[in-house]
């Protein structure tokens, strides 16, 4: 054990915090872990483990600030004091009496380090639950307790940080890598991941090795117990291009291996996805009621239909727009989302010509104003989602529980905000419903950035309901949300509050002062303002102080230019034949 200093007597030493005088050439930095031994004849030996959260050097006894000039010129002798403040993380055994001033302070290493960070408690009947989560400052692997992530004792991860600098997505993908491949999570092969790509095309190269991955970074992955490889089993889905013939994924940098996704009208009706087009449900309570009613009507209408188009029998001739076709039984074929909107308009407001009334079985006794508001909103959404909900082709919505791939990346970047809401809401509600019915045994991890958009603090929306459901009941059903946002203060409290693991990257100064981050000690909040890329502050329930962790450079490409091209004969052969 390396003695680094002694407990100060000139400042209060308490069981929860004390000051250390660093001696000689000793080095004590923020985040260093130390151990102190105390003794009292009635209790015996007590060991205090703690983390340094403040370090300072000062010329003792100099009462004038300008004395420093004299000292620098070598005219007065000065006494340099190097002190550190330690927050106690653990006392073994739990006897809360203060350490004696003058007690030796040692750097916590090896077993002591594990005790200081409660690593010894990270296990269950089947073995260790230490999930690699990056590196501590001293180079040792930082762990988090899987049981607080996987839903056993707690679930969900919440990541905050400024866009672009904080690397929230990178850390989320690193955590996924660790979850899927460290071997700590049981039945990891059964776990499924739903990743939403919200900006750029960063996540569309998860399966490609990173050209810029250095040998040192590879070595770091090995030290973490992870293979330095890209994700092996990934399915990429992107929305179809608007307009044009055929259905092609709307992506620019990745040309192969991306499939377009969309819903057909029958799926739209059967799964009850209509509410996800109305993101301001709270604005009009009557509207919310009408939405629910129409959703139900559509569901009944689509019963037994195969699609992709929706057949309706009660759209009277003469009112029909051009291009509408009929099936053998004379039913009208709705072949696009705009057809559906026109049909609903007819049902709710009556024929376009004249001041007719809508179909009473559809209008649910709502006032005309409400009906019109509904139709207005629906019409406005045609531009945003017509390419996602279509009647011309069998639907192919993303379903992370289907297919052989483990990781499903769903691209949202090119969609309008309403389109993004619709996709996220539809997928999550579908996923949650399936898990609720017990259709899939394995765990599902959902990675969603910009939570402030989907679960805003002050507004109501059907997507927020789904996210709240996941946050509050998801962990027992095996649905784990890895959410991220720039500002936790703008996200629904219960969504953030239910996350057992909280991660903070670079924050802006105003944000760091908000009560959402009060769980961080002051020194960490200050440091969150200057965190470099690749560093994260990690907070988990068992450890009373957060950990500053560094995570390795992604082993997978995060953009086209980073892709390490595989030019081996084997790869070329696969491509051409």
């Amino acid at each position, binding site marked *: 054990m390396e003695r680094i200093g002694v407990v100060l007597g000139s400042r209060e030493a308490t069981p929860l915090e004390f000051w250390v005088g660093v001696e000689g050439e000793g080095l004590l930095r923020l985040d260093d872990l130390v151990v102190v031994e105390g003794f009292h004849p009635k209790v015996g030996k007590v060991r205090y483990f703690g983390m340094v959260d403040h370090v300072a050097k000062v010329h003792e006894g100099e009462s004038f600030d300008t004395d420093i000039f004299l000292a620098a010129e070598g005219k007065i*002798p000065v006494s340099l004091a190097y002190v550190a403040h330690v927050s106690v993380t653990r006392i073994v055994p739990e006897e809360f009496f203060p350490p004696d001033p003058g007690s030796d302070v040692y750097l916590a290493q090896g077993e002591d380090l594990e005790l200081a960070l409660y690593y010894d408690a990270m296990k269950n009947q089947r073995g260790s639950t230490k999930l690699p989560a990056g590196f501590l400052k001293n180079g040792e692997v930082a762990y988090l307790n899987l049981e607080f992530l996987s839903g056993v004792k707690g679930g969900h991860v919440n990541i905050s940080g400024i866009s672009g600098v904080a690397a929230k997505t990178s850390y989320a993908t690193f955590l996924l890598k660790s979850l899927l491949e460290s071997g700590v999570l049981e039945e990891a092969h059964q776990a499924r991941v739903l990743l939403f790509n919200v900006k750029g095309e960063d996540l569309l190269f998860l399966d490609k090795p990173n050209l810029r991955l250095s040998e040192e970074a590879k070595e770091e992955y090995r030290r973490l117990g992870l293979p330095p490889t890209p994700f092996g089993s990934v399915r990429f889905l992107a929305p179809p291009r608007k307009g044009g013939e055929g259905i092609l994924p709307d992506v620019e940098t990745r040309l192969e291996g991306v499939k377009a996704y969309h819903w057909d009208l029958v799926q739209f009706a059967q799964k009850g996805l209509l509410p996800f087009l109305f993101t301001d449900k709270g604005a009009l309570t009557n509207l919310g009621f009408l939405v629910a009613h129409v959703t139900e009507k559509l569901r009944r209408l689509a019963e037994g239909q195969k699609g992709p188009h929706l057949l309706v029998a009660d759209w009277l001739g003469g009112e029909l727009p051009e291009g509408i076709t009929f099936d053998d039984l004379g039913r009208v074929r709705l072949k696009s989302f705009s057809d559906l909107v026109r049909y609903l308009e007819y049902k709710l407001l009556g024929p376009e010509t004249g001041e007719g009334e809508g179909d009473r079985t559809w209008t649910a006794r709502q006032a005309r104003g409400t009906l019109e508001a509904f139709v207005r909103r629906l019409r406005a959404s045609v531009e945003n989602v017509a390419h996602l909900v279509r009647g011309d082709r069998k639907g192919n919505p993303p379903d992370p529980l289907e297919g052989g791939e483990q990781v499903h990346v769903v691209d949202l970047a090119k969609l309008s905000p309403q389109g993004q809401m619709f996709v996220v809401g539809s997928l999550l509600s579908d996923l949650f419903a399936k898990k609720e019915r017990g259709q899939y045994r394995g765990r599902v991890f959902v990675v969603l950035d910009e939570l402030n958009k989907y679960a805003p603090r002050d507004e109501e929306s059907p997507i927020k309901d789904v996210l709240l459901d996941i946050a509050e009941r998801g962990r027992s059903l095996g649905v784990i949300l890895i959410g991220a946002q720039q500002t936790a203060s703008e996200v629904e409290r219960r969504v953030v509050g239910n996350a057992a693991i909280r991660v903070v990257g670079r924050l802006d100064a105003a944000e760091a002062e908000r009560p959402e981050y009060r769980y961080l000690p002051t020194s960490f909040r200050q440091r969150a303002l200057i965190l470099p890329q690749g560093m994260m502050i990690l907070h988990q329930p068992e450890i009373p102080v957060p950990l500053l962790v560094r995570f390795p450079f992604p082993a997978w490409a995060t953009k086209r230019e980073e892709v390490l091209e595989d030019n081996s004969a084997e790869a070329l052969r696969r491509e051409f034949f």
Partner: protein
Amino acid sequence: MAWRLYALDLSRLEGPAEGVEASPGVWDGTPGAQEGYLASFYPLEEPWEARRAHPLPWPEPLYFVDGRERAEAVLSDGRRLALLGCVAAGAVVYQRGNMRLLETRVRRVGVGLEEALRLGKLVYEPLPLEGPPNPGDVLTALQEGLRKARTLLEEQLAEALAGGLLVVDGPVRLRRQGPVLGYIKTHWARYLPEDREALLSTLKPGERTPMFRVRRKGQELASWYLRLPLPPEGVRPPESGLLRVETPLQGDFGALADLSLSLFPALASHPVKDPRAPQNLLPVGGLERELSRRMGSREVVGRLLARYLGGG
């Protein structure tokens, strides 16, 4: 009868002690201001006028030695008095552009005790009174004993310093191989005849008088006055910035006189920061602070003594 606590604070004692406190002989470092100096005045440089010198680099290592003393308690066993005190001496050294604390020594002594007195962690070494006890002026004798203990400690420490230039606070008493400078802050004794004294009030900061010879207890010394800067200039009387420096009359003492003009004015303290400015030199001020720290808190010591010796 055992030793009992008589007083913790000397100034609270009645009688001669108060007079003793005010006596300059104890406090100024130039005891026994003798009339003899004037009679034997002998200038070593002519003509008698202000002198300047070019800036010179400081020699290395450059040592400053100083000491402190503190009376902590007066004890009585019914018949006799004894003085418990603490003396400390320390050295700072200037080397490679850096002034640092080299060494400190702290001793607790009991003047008038025959054997060591242990009071918890405090141990007072015995220091018998010299000469026959004079019932009228016991306290003065006790304090003189404490002062001697301090001087002795300073000298022991200074003897161990090898090479370089040694600067001591007060007159030069010790014998040393290398060069040594003593500086005297307060001027109780007159060294210059009246006609020569006029030069003192015309000295500008950084100037000195010519050297003159001083004989003391078989020692031959060269001495001179120099003027320290005392900002703001012109406000205080000119003699308030005077420092008398002396060095044994051996080796190249003239060079030391010139060097002193590069040394002392640069180290003069600033009146804003130090009530004893400018004569209380910067490194020595820092050293004294260190020493008083190492002597321990007066209050804590007082409490310990009160607990072990009772009364007060």
